[in-house]
């Protein structure tokens, strides 16, 4: 490959990494970006002959010098590249959420997202190789590059990494044990004046960081008679919540006391679907005879179209009429 082609590959890998690290929605197709990035990495490794990873014994003086220099430049680029990725993440997040300013960010703590994990891993893996691909000049009599000698990863076997990658991802999403994603923050919630309210949040991650997360947020109130979810008009308030909720003698419509408040009890707002799709989310409520709230959130996570290898996810929150939490994701 010519130097120009190698530089194009390097820029393309950088762009794919930036897309991965950004907040732009991937709608469950993140694996395609990862596969494209892996393909670019293979091309870069082949065109540089895998110089960054070759054993010292097989290198001549020029190659050793180039490789050591690439590691120094690569090391210096890591910090800058990470800062750039964070900047991209911030700018894209602002751009994506510009039209949805009424919704706060997710309440579910999923740690470092899979996108950032992969983007960081990509930087660490490929930066020295990128420096080599960028700097190395074309050789006279050929189109240049360390990989033109037919050594290293140029073999077609390197491309087997791609199906292996897809298989590993599919296995993780389809069979790996779900992980709980705890609440990111808890605070006193809003609600009727005759009740005590608390915001709850949590979720379940399917396929660790490389699948999808089904999350929930719910503003749960209790008044000694019943526990109930406030802020989602699709879930009706119990009679005890409406009783004495307003001025004496005034009969007000329920929506006055239970306005839609997605900020507190939005259904499906805390899902994360970068590497697998999350189907329609249903949020249901049942208050038993003892006044205990059973709040259930369910959805289906699908790594592939047509629901192939999909998994059902159900989250249960159980709170008594005195505010005691019996079950929480």
């Amino acid at each position, binding site marked *: 490959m010519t130097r120009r082609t190698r530089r194009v590959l390097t820029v393309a890998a950088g762009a794919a990494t930036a897309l991965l690290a950004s907040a732009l929605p991937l709608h469950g197709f993140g694996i395609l970006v990862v596969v494209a990035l892996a393909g670019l990495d293979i091309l870069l490794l082949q065109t540089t002959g895998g110089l960054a990873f070759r054993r010292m014994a097989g290198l001549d003086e020029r190659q050793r010098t180039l490789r050591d220099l690439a*590691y*120094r430049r690569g*090391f210096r680029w890591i910090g800058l590249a990470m800062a750039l990725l964070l900047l991209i993440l911030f700018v894209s997040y602002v751009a994506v959420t510009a039209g949805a300013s009424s919704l706060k960010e997710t309440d579910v703590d999923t*740690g*470092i997202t899979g996108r950032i994990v992969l983007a960081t891993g990509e930087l660490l893996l490929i930066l020295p190789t990128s420096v080599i691909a960028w700097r190395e000049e074309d050789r006279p009599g050929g189109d240049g590059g360390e990989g033109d000698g037919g050594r290293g990863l140029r073999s077609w076997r390197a491309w087997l990494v791609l199906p292996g990658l897809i298989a590993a991802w599919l296995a993780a999403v389809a069979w790996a044990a779900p*992980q709980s*994603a705890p609440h990111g923050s808890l605070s006193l919630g809003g609600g009727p004046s005759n009740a005590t309210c608390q915001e709850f949040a949590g979720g379940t991650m399917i396929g660790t960081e490389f699948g999808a997360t089904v999350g929930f947020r719910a503003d749960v109130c209790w008044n000694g008679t019943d526990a109930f979810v406030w802020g989602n008009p699709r879930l009706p308030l119990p009679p005890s919540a409406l009783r004495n909720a307003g001025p004496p003698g005034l009969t007000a419509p329920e929506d006055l006391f239970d306005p839609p408040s997605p900020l507190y009890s939005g259904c499906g707002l805390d899902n994360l679907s970068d590497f697998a799709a999350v189907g329609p989310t249903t949020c249901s409520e049942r208050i038993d005879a003892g006044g205990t709230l059973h709040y259930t959130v369910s959805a289906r996570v699908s790594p592939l179209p047509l629901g192939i290898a999909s998994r059902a996810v159900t989250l249960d929150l159980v709170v008594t009429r005195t505010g005691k939490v019996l079950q929480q994701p």
Partner: protein
Amino acid sequence: MSATPAPDPRRRLVVRRPGPAGMLLALAVALLVMVIVTLGVAGANDVSTVLPALGYLLLVVVTWGVVAGARHQPGSWLERRGVRRAVVAAITADCVGLIATSLPGLQVGSVPLLLLIFLVLLNIALGNATERMASAPDGSVDERQEALRNRAHRLAYPVFATVVGALLIADVASTPSRQWAEHVLGSGGLFVLLELLFVLPGMVLAVIEPAPPPAESDIPRRPRAANVQARVAIALVVMVFALPVLASVGVVVLPLVTTSSSVSSPSGPPPPGQPFDPASCRSYSAQVSVGWGVSASLEYSGQACWGGNTAGTTIPASCGMGDQAFVTASGVACDSTTAGGSVTFTSRATLSPALLPFLRRRVTVTVTLDRNGRMEVQP
């Protein structure tokens, strides 16, 4: 015909140093930042507790200035291979300490702050030992140095990648490991990561760089003034490291200092069965302090009345730890007993310096008030 002189295999780096005014300004800003940070950390603690810490920070800043300003000479002690490796080992231990003290739920007081201060000083020492070769501009290093630092970066790269990779794996592996990774990154781990990002190649360089050639007899000896400055720098560095350790040991070995006060307080009712006499009620307080700089105090205060036959408390006593600086307290307990018409208040705690948590000292303060209003404090 003129002979071209052979290049010096160990050409010195040309490092541009800031002028005295710039150095003073930097020191002043650093001191100001440290004062603000320290006062913020101190919170409601007494100023007298904060003062030794401020003095120590001032010492750190002065040491920083003196070490950074000490002229670097060929054959300097910092250039010795053993010293360089010792500095690298100390930085590694410091980073491990920062991670270890960042574990969730661990109460280690101000140890991370001390470790960060040490880390800054060690980085200065490393920079001097390697002449900041790892990050020097391209034009200021010769071919040998260029090859050496490139190799150092190549060796440092996988180490850095492994550390970051371990954090990423922890983020993916399970919920507890994810929470651990988040906690570590949100505390001391972030500093360790930055340390590795900016200093790891310099550390590797300090390890792999060959020992300097022996000093030749025709090399002019360094001026006496430079020698003195270097020795002062060494003394200051030793003092910066030794003081916290000595002050921590002081918590265990220094004598207890007892202070007490008692003032007339006619507001309280008398003990049961006693006639009310305003002159027979007093507010009292007793304090036992230990340590200097690394210190803690145990306090007991309240109000009592006496009537010739018995004495007794009239309002609930306040008991517990007073000011604490780099000391953790455990087993704090307070009780009172009555015998022979006297009432005895006892407060106990086990103190341990945060820097040397294996050292412990059990401290007890006893306040005895007899039926005639006499107060006795015993540590």
